[in-house]
Every structure is written in structure tokens, then in C-alpha cells.
């Protein structure tokens, strides 16, 4: 316990020290605020421009979460399908691997071509980018059901659905929640990326516009917001994971990514 508190305090001081150092170095080396604004300037921009930034924050959040939700639905469906059937696994796996090795960034221009710029490509990018880790984790979790236990249940006359419902899916939960942490981060990256390239709303777009207008401290303000949002989303899903699958997390991280 004591060690924990100590580490917390130290990591907090590290963060504070980092910004202090940044501030001090900028002043000492007289760095132009067109290159690297000081944290204090960024904070002022954040504060004064917040009413303008707020709708963009909501927009980015909306695109991320919608795409993520769709990705979870699709990822779970495919994962259950290939995790419960050895044939489906064998047949679909090569295609999935091929699909997963495409840099997802490369699909943004195609999505823009089909759907125009705006919210739709952002949502779809967020979706596509998070499907694969969910599929892999669900399929892995389902495939690791103990054969002895399956024999016990089959002997009792359990249907495939009953085995899936009582054993397969609960056993997969730790894998699933671990993959959600990874997936939400990826969705967020996907949404921001698509906004940067092809949208007139969202934090990604704010940063792009500010950059072309040389509003450097606004660019950095955008970066700060993204960092905070990313941390918040990750923390939320970590918390959820710990609550739901506490029985499995006695100290180890089992996500397959």
C-alpha cells in the first residue's frame, strides 16, 4: 500500500516536472511560439477557446463511440462464428489475416470516395480499425474451452448453444474486455485520423485547420484534448474490465493483440 502511494506521488511529480521543464526550456531558449508554444499559453488557449472546441469534442466522441459500438457488434459476431466452428476458423482465417495487415489508414480515401467527407467515414474508420482485435480475442477465448469440461456437459446432454452460453462465452469475457481496451484506443485513432483528412468537424479537423492558419497553440490545445480523451476512454474500459471479470484478473493481462 505504502509503495503504491509513493509511486503515485512520483508519477504525478514526473508529469508536473515534464510541463515545468517544457515551460522553462521554452523561455530559456527563446523558442518561438510558432514552433512550440509554452504549456501556459496552451492552457490559456484551451480556456478561452473551450466553448468553440466543445462541439468538436462531442463530435469526435460521437464518431469514436458509434464506430466502436458497430465494431464490437461485428467483431463479436464474427468471433463467435469462427471461434465455435473449426471449419469456419480454417476457412476465414487467411482472409482475416490479410484484412488485418492492411494499414487501416489506407481505407480512408476509399470511404471518402463512397460516402463523401464528414461523419460517415469517421465512424466507419473507427469501426473497421477495431474489429480485428475483438474477433481474435473472442475466437481465442472460445477455442480454449477445456475438453474435459465439454465432455462432462455433452454427456449431460447439453446442446452446443448451452455449452456456448454456460461455458464458452463466460470464459471468453476476460479476453473480450481486454480487447475492448485495445479496440477503443484504435477506434479513437481511426476517428481522429479520418476527421483530419476528410471532415469539417471534430478535433482532428480543428487541428488541421488551426495548423494551416498557423494557430499553433490551438493545434497543441487539440493535442491535449485528444490525450485526455484517450486516457479517459482507456481508463473507463479498464475499470469496466476489472469490475466484470475480476475472477480472472488475479494479476495478469491476457489480451491477445
Amino acid at each position, binding site marked *: 500500500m505504502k509503495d503504491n502511494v509513493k509511486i503515485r506521488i512520483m508519477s504525478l511529480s514526473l508529469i508536473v516536472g515534464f510541463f515545468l521543464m517544457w515551460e522553462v526550456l521554452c523561455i530559456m531558449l527563446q523558442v518561438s511560439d510558432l514552433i512550440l508554444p509554452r504549456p501556459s499559453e496552451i492552457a490559456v488557449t484551451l480556456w478561452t477557446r473551450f466553448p468553440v472546441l466543445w462541439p468538436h469534442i462531442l463530435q469526435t466522441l460521437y464518431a469514436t463511440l458509434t464506430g466502436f459500438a458497430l465494431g464490437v457488434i461485428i467483431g463479436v459476431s464474427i468471433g463467435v462464428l469462427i471461434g465455435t466452428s473449426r471449419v469456419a476458423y480454417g476457412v476465414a482465417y487467411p482472409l482475416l489475416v490479410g484484412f488485418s495487415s492492411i494499414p487501416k489508414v489506407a481505407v480512408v480515401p476509399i470511404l471518402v470516395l463512397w460516402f463523401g467527407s464528414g461523419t460517415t467515414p469517421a465512424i466507419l474508420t473507427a469501426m473497421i480499425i477495431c474489429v480485428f482485435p475483438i474477433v481474435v480475442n473472442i475466437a481465442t477465448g472460445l477455442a480454449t474451452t*477445456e475438453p*474435459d*469440461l465439454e*465432455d*462432462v*456437459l*455433452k*454427456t*449431460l*446432454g*447439453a446442446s452446443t448453444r*448451452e455449452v456456448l452460453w*454456460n*461455458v464458452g462465452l*463466460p*470464459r471468453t*469475457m476476460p479476453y473480450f474486455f481486454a480487447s475492448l481496451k485495445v479496440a477503443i484506443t484504435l477506434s479513437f485513432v481511426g476517428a481522429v485520423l479520418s476527421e483530419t483528412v476528410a471532415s469539417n468537424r471534430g478535433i482532428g479537423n480543428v487541428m488541421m485547420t488551426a495548423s494551416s492558419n498557423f494557430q499553433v497553440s490551438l493545434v497543441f490545445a487539440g493535442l491535449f484534448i485528444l490525450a485526455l480523451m484517450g486516457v479517459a476512454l482507456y481508463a473507463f474500459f479498464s475499470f469496466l474490465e476489472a469490475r466484470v*471479470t475480476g*475472477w*480472472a484478473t*488475479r494479476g495478469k493481462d491476457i489480451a491477445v493483440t
Partner: protein
Amino acid sequence: MASAAYPQPVHPRPAIELHEASVVFGSGDAAVTALTPTTLRMERGDFLALVGPSGCGKSTILRLVSNLIKPSSGQVLLGGRDAAAKEMRIGMAFQNPTMLPWLTIEKNVMLPLKIVEPFKRSFQRDRKGAYRDRVHALLEQVGLRDFANHFPWQLSGGMLQRANLCRALIHDPDLLLLDEPFGALDQFTREELWQTLQDLYLDRKPTVLLVTHDLREAGFLARRICVMSARPGRIISDKAVMLPQPRDIGVIYTPDFVEMTQGLRELIAQVRK
């Protein structure tokens, strides 16, 4: 229940009949004979121990009886009908207790009631009432009453194996299939569990087919011992154990018992050569 007014049929069909049943995995050059044609008959309520070197086909016989695999030739009958007909209700336990880590012991033991008819029908209604009482009564019998709400990782290996026996018996099976259930336990715990299993058996009188390498375990628990030869396995000896039940654990040190297990040991050693 047998009663005077409704006598049992004069010739009830045996619990288990294997007629020249064999199992071959794969085909052509890669074919593996897991069981050569084997004939075995087991009466209802009997307790049979199947012993033999590993790989001789003991688990294969259990898998045939539980209809997890089909015989490549011959027949497997339960209660006079094909094993696939599910004529008899089966409970099963392995060496690995396979408790579900996200459920309490109570809920783990209750699982078969969720799956097997007629219990399944009223599971939603009774799981908090009659079924819970039923689970608690059984846990009480094996000394786990106070652990009903514990999770599997809070229990020792011996306790988990007790819970495993409970899960195998909670739905009142006609047939109990045990595959080296105590193989992973230390000697003291094992002997305690022998007594627990003996009590459960004498109390409920299911038909029990126990696979084990442990000759003393076979001698202490079973009414009949079948010895199998090394792969490809055949039943080379089939003997009744002439000791009255319930047996006290001290029996395993009596000269008669030692002589019996010694005889079995020599038999197995001979066929291994």
C-alpha cells in the same frame, strides 16, 4: 423405489453391455486401435473398477459408454438400448475438477440441473429454492456445506474434487463414470475421498464405473475389478471383491486385501512383458 406391490421386472436389462465393441481412430496406415473388440457386462447398482496400464483404452471405454464416441464395430447398450438413446442418466467426473472459475461452488454443482431434464424445466423457479437446498444437502454430505458460496480458487485440490463428485451426482444419475478422479491428490486426501465416494455410493446406489491405476483404490471401493492388458487393450481378468461394504480404511492393510492387490499387480506386470 422398489415396493412389494410393484415388484421390479424379473430380468431388468444390465446397466452396461459392450458386445465386441472396438474403437479405431483414423483409417489406412494412420489407423490407431484404441480398443480391440471388447465384451463387458455390468449389472445395475454394481461398482466396477477398471484398471490397467495407461494407453490401454480405459478412457475409451468410458467415452463409448457416455456416447461421446461411437464404436467402430460391435454394440454398446445402456439399459438394453443403444447408448445414443440416452436410456440412462449419466454423471461424469475426471481427474481435473474443471469447476468454472466465475461461479461459486454452489452454482458449479447446480449446473447439471440447468441442463438435464426434468430439472431443467423448472430451473428458473427452483434455483433459489428447492435446487439450492438439494445442492446444500449434497455439499453437507461431503463436508463442503460452509464452502457453498466460495469460489473454486479458494478451495484445495481435495475439496475441489469433492465438489466435482457433487456435480456428477446432483442430477441423480443412474450411471456414474469416473476417470481417475483422485489421480492428482496426495495419499491422505485420496483415502478421505475414497470414504466419501463409498458413502455416496452406498447412499444412492448408482451404477459406478471407475477407471483408476491405483489397485488399492480399486480394491477398497469396487465390488468387481476388471484388469486390462497394455495396448491394444483386452480385459484379461474379471474378479469380484469379496469384502462386505461399507469397508473401513483399515481394510487395505489386512492380509487378504494385500494378497488381492498383490495378485492383480503380478497379473499386470506379466502382461506388460
